[in-house]
């Protein structure tokens, strides 16, 4: 829908450009390339950085889109939901308690099959009021039909945003998708990032076609009528099937992304780093991978065969592939940047999911769960060494540790 401005035309060539941009700016680059139609904004740190970056794109003539400043997150998400039903490609986002304030709108989006793409700049939930990263904000929608993924770098943020529209707007899926980016570590750090030309994006990303669900005078429909117990379970079942179909669509999208852009992972679901021969595999999501990779290199130099699995996709959860990868190890350590008070073993959300995923497996290596880096606390190399040691200890006794260890907490 965007008009091709002279500035945009000048920028387009067949070559990628290298720019020094933050994770948020990388998302904004992708949005301009994806020819976004409607974006809504309401400021909250760290998500607000993407909002500012989009505003600059529009004022600079690189993107023609409706930019609506809402009076709060609740309206912010409602507006894009409605825009999407009339066929607009939409973007939205928030952080921490802002995301929570939109909760009513977040839960109605999946059953209405609205392919909204959002950025969650991960932020600790109040109280205490804090800005640093925790993953609990995005994770609260894990059960209601949102696709959830975590990115690690500005490059991955840009690429994943393009992939997100391709997946969410696929007629087989039509589900909302939230991309999580760790507050500060990714949203506010500028890194060298390759920005593809529009011509490549056009070959990868088809236009959004809402088909028979388009709300339009030529296709008169009623959306979201009241229903009683005779209808609800069928509607939930439809949602479940769409989420199941998303698995194939995600794999197709990554394969096509590699074909068009010449980069991107072969395994969409998680990144494996020195995991092939590892005795101990550590698992985490987001920018925590940086400390883990550095620590792993140090430990490898000392002869400890430690590896990393960085989970990208949390919903749909890559159960079979992840189990196949992790069950090779002698012990697994899951590092959660979130909490789930009162949960089994007091573990974080990721550890409990992986424990459940392993249950049907013939080979279940001992599992140790950790909670670390809450509220944006630095995850130190010493934290990682400690975690690896505990995993080795569990491997030695051949038994999971039923205690969840809090790393980097003053005690």
């Amino acid at each position, binding site marked *: 829908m965007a008009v091709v401005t002279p500035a945009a035309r000048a920028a387009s060539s067949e070559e990628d450009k290298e720019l020094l941009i933050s994770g948020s700016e990388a998302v904004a680059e992708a949005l301009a390339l994806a020819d976004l139609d409607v974006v809504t904004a309401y400021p909250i740190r760290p998500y607000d950085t993407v909002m500012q970056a989009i505003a600059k794109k529009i004022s600079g003539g690189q993107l023609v889109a409706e930019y609506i400043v809402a009076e709060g997150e609740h309206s912010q998400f409602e507006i894009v939901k409605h825009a999407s039903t009339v066929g607009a490609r939409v973007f939205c986002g928030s952080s921490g308690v802002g995301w929570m304030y939109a909760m009513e709108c977040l839960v109605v989006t999946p*059953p209405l099959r*609205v392919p909204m793409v959002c950025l969650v700049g991960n932020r600790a939930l109040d109280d205490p009021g804090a800005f640093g990263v925790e993953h609990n904000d995005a994770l609260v929608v894990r059960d209601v039909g949102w696709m959830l993924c975590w990115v690690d770098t500005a490059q991955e943020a840009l690429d994943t945003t393009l992939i997100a529209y391709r997946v969410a707007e696929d007629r087989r899926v039509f589900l909302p998708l939230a991309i999580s980016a760790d507050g500060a570590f990714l949203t506010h750090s500028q890194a060298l990032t390759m920005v593809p030309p529009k011509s490549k994006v056009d070959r990868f990303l088809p236009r959004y076609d809402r088909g028979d669900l388009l709300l339009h005078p030529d296709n008169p429909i009623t959306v*979201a009528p009241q229903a009683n117990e005779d209808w609800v379970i069928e*509607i939930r079942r439809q949602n479940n099937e769409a989420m199941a179909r998303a698995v194939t669509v995600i794999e197709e999208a990554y394969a096509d992304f590699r074909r068009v852009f010449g980069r991107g992972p072969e395994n969409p679901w998680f990144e494996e780093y020195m995991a092939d021969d590892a005795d101990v595999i550590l698992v985490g999501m987001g920018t925590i991978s940086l400390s883990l990779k550095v620590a792993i290199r140090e430990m490898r130099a000392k002869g400890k065969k430690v590896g990393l699995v960085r989970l990208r996709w949390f919903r749909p959860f890559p159960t079979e592939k992840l189990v196949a990868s992790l069950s090779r190890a002698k012990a697994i350590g899951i590092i959660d940047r979130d909490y789930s008070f009162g949960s089994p073993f007091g573990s974080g959300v990721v550890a409990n999911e992986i424990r459940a995923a392993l249950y049907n497996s013939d080979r279940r290596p001992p599992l140790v769960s950790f909670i670390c880096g809450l509220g944006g606390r630095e995850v130190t190399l010493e934290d990682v060494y400690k975690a690896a040691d505990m995993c080795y200890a569990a491997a030695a006794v051949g038994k999971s540790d039923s205690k969840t260890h809090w790393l980097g907490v003053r005690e």
Partner: protein
Amino acid sequence: MAALICEVVYRGIFQKNLAARITRGIVLSARKSGRWGIAFGRYGDSPQRNGIPAKDFAIVADTKEELEQNMARYEPKHVDVTVVVDDTLSKGVESWAWYGLQPINKLTVPNGTVLMTSLQSYESLLKDIHKKDAPYKLALIRAKASFSGLWVYKEDHTEARILGALAKIAPSFLSLDGVSAAISEIEWGSDLKVSSAKKAYERLESREIKLTEGNSEIPYSFEMPKWWEMREGVTIPAIPVGKPKEDGKGYVPERNPYFKKYTTRTMRPVINFDTCVKCTLCWIQCPDSCFDVMPDGTYDANMEACCGCGVCEAVCPVENCVTMVNESVFEDNASQWEMWRKDKQKYQTWLGEKIGDKKTTVRSHGFRFRGQYEKELEKGFEDGGGEITAGIPGENAEHKKI
């Protein structure tokens, strides 16, 4: 019979409190003989909507285990007694929660009982009640429908009468002593009510209904779609736009083919097309868009869509042009305008008969003037009839002829 299962079919809002009192009364009466019981409503019904058919249930059993056995489902699939507290429900019911048109005796077990409050004859009722593939009993309490409002209850002893009648129908579960004790000790504490229950016990009329008796209409029904047959996105197709009636004149809107709404109706408008001034008010104001525009510019209330709310009568500026009449005197949903077009003289005679029927012109819901409540009670205790009014006193009653 180790358990007694009763349903109470009632009108949303108008009889919501009445139905709850009846089912409570059943459980508390049976408790007097040591039975266990539960009273509950079908949650998916919408008892908060004027006139919409809804259901309450009461189950009583000898033991807690037997009670649980009958409770372990959303709602009973068969009932020993169907209690119907408004005889216009005998045409069948379509709530927003049960699909298609349910005959009023659908859940009644073979040789079970349909217990109804009605002033109509058996013959008249059996023109409306659908045929059943098993014999059953039709028991009548001679009273008009007891209607009130959302928060209130009409103290006309209908609940006591129903309990008294049930003591006759199912004496092994509800003895008259048990009912009397429950009324006086537990719930409503009134000797007058106990005597009402006893009167109903003595006066209850009952008749065996044979397989051959009843309305032979095949009730409208439809299949619920499977999950993969349903449109995605909680989306349903809108009702298409309508068409001109004939020769490009008039206009008939399309309507929901799956939900007819008319079983919500307890009164229907009858229209004098000769005096209609084509002002459009009924057509504009009808909350259910039930008026079809006729080629001559008059408006025909479509009886598949009319809920009988009476707004058309209230807004019509012409004396006696639109008059609400008790639904029980009509036997079909045929077009009044077509009847009028065919024979205007005959139509006027028909209209006069409907409006002039003293028994049936009685308003079946709402109160029209101060003191009507007391007058109705006074009359109701003796013969079940009510004060007869047409129109709204102080507004248009002096212009309405009975």
